[in-house]
């Protein structure tokens, strides 16, 4: 009787103790990336308005951002030290880790009217970023979809003021475009691109 009762329990224990599927921190780059999660969220799923989502980010774009921050081309007192740290702790693995994470869009609430105004004004962006906002790696154009609107707006303002990567030839066109856009429209554009999935 005792043995019979114990069998299902023993079976359960064996099942529980059996080999566990690869966990969320088993991938190369994941252990180093836990330092990033303080600001960018676990697995790069930023929940705040200020910090970009790193989950699902294209490795080429992540690496360029890290290199530009480390070199001081993208000026950020927060990111410059951390970018140097990422370069020293294995940027390829960390980039591959974030790229492998499925992106959960930003939970920052959007004003539907701003999204609609943004949609009407977004045609100029689609020339490079595409109608779906997914970008084009071959031209060095990143995916905008689902990013927090606060982050997108800040980047547009930095482009307009030429404070992001000054002298970068790849960014000449986007900066020229930003200079034609009135500041108050950036919130609408940011809301629209943030709303896309």
């Amino acid at each position, binding site marked *: 009787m005792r043995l019979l009762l114990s069998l299902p329990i023993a079976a*359960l224990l064996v099942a529980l*103790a059996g080999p566990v599927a690869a966990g969320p921190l088993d991938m190369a780059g994941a252990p180093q990336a836990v330092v990033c999660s*303080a600001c960018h969220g676990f697995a790069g799923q930023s929940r705040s308005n*200020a*910090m970009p989502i790193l989950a699902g980010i294209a490795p080429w774009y992540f690496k360029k951002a890290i290199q530009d921050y480390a070199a001081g081309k993208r000026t950020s007192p927060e990111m410059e030290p*951390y970018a140097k*740290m990422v370069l020293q*702790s294995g940027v390829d693995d960390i980039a591959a880790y974030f790229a492998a994470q499925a992106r959960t869009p930003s939970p920052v609430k959007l004003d539907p009217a701003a999204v609609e105004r943004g949609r009407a004004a977004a045609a100029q962006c689609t020339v490079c970023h595409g109608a779906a906002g997914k970008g084009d790696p071959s031209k060095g154009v990143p995916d905008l979809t689902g990013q927090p609107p606060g982050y997108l707006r800040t980047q547009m303002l930095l482009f307009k003021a030429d404070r992001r990567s000054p002298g970068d030839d790849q960014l000449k066109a986007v900066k020229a475009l930003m200079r034609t856009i009135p500041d108050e429209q950036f919130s609408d554009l940011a809301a629209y691109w943030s709303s896309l999935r």
Partner: protein
Amino acid sequence: MKQSTRREVLRASAWAGLGLVATGCAPKVSDYAQKPGRRVIVIGGGWGGASAAKYVRLADPSIEVVLLEPNQEFVSCPFSNLVLSGVRTIESLTFSYDGLRAHGVRVLHETATMIDADRKRVHVGRNALPYDRVIVSPGVEFQWDQVEGLAAAQDQVLHAWKAGPQTVELARQLQAMPDGGVFVLTIPPAAYRCPPGPYERTCQVAWYLKNNKPKSKLIVLDANPNIISKTALFRAAWANYPNIEYRGSNKVVKVDPGTREVTTELGDKVKYDVLNLIPPQRAGTIAVTADLVGADKRWCEVNHLTYESVKHKNVHVIGDSTIGLPVPKSGNVANAMGKISALAVVSLLNDKPVPTIAPGNTCYSWVSDREAIAVVNSYKIDGGKVVQIEQKLTPGQSEAWAQNAVGWANSIWADVLS
């Protein structure tokens, strides 16, 4: 302790495996007198301990995690200076431990009283909880005896250096102080929790007084010769607050709540209407009783890769109670140490190599109701030791940094607790 029969162990294993111990009713310490499988006990549910508990579960859900934290809720020290100025409420900084429970962490609102490192047991009152490894994140304890008259006046002389009821009471005293009153803030000698914290508090109290009690004065008595963190940025911020009277190298050695007076090492007596005395600090009490502190009797030395104590095996120490790493005693560092120690502990329990990870430090200070400054430090592991790569400061104060501060806080609170 009574030897368990195989049947009891099996039953305990099954219950634990099914996650039934914690369902239905609050778990009790006595539920954990047996250890059915591998177990990590985390002592202290602050920034370090809560992060460690969560990340052990994330890295290996087959490991049972028991978190011992006496407080029912988590109250954030970062941003709590804003409660003094009325910019934030304490409720906006108070969070539940339910997020950790959702990760399968067994949260027990109890105080660990002793660690028996030889027998690998944590004592909670009369119960002894076995562990495979223990992560100790006890924060700081105040050295009441370092200031004459303080031990007997603990209830009247507020530190507000552990966010909670004292923060709210200090804000109430500040609001109740008559215009023309003197607020005295005293800063202990380094090392203490949150190096820039007292100077941020200076900004918040001065901002409040400037806007609400313009005839009042804030006297800052600093045991250190000068501002010890973000020095130039705080000096620049204080230019907006002529109501601050800062006195460096003014260590307070005596307090008399009867005459409402503090005495400095130099013998100067300073009268106050409201006093905020931040006492000298050491590692939390369990670190002392468990013989984890070094020769200084204050702080704990650890391995820089695993955070294992240099004094006791299988006992890891993180957060403000550590010493010897070139990092500040900050919430961000405690969060990083919690995560890194968790991955180290999981690796050690699975006989895998410990990953090489250094912490980082992102630290914002509010200098008014809407502007902030920041310092950021990154680190690497070099020769088995944590070494700084770089420190960067914001070039000035701005609303943009304050927005980043809010983003940081929302992100890291989630990283610690949900």
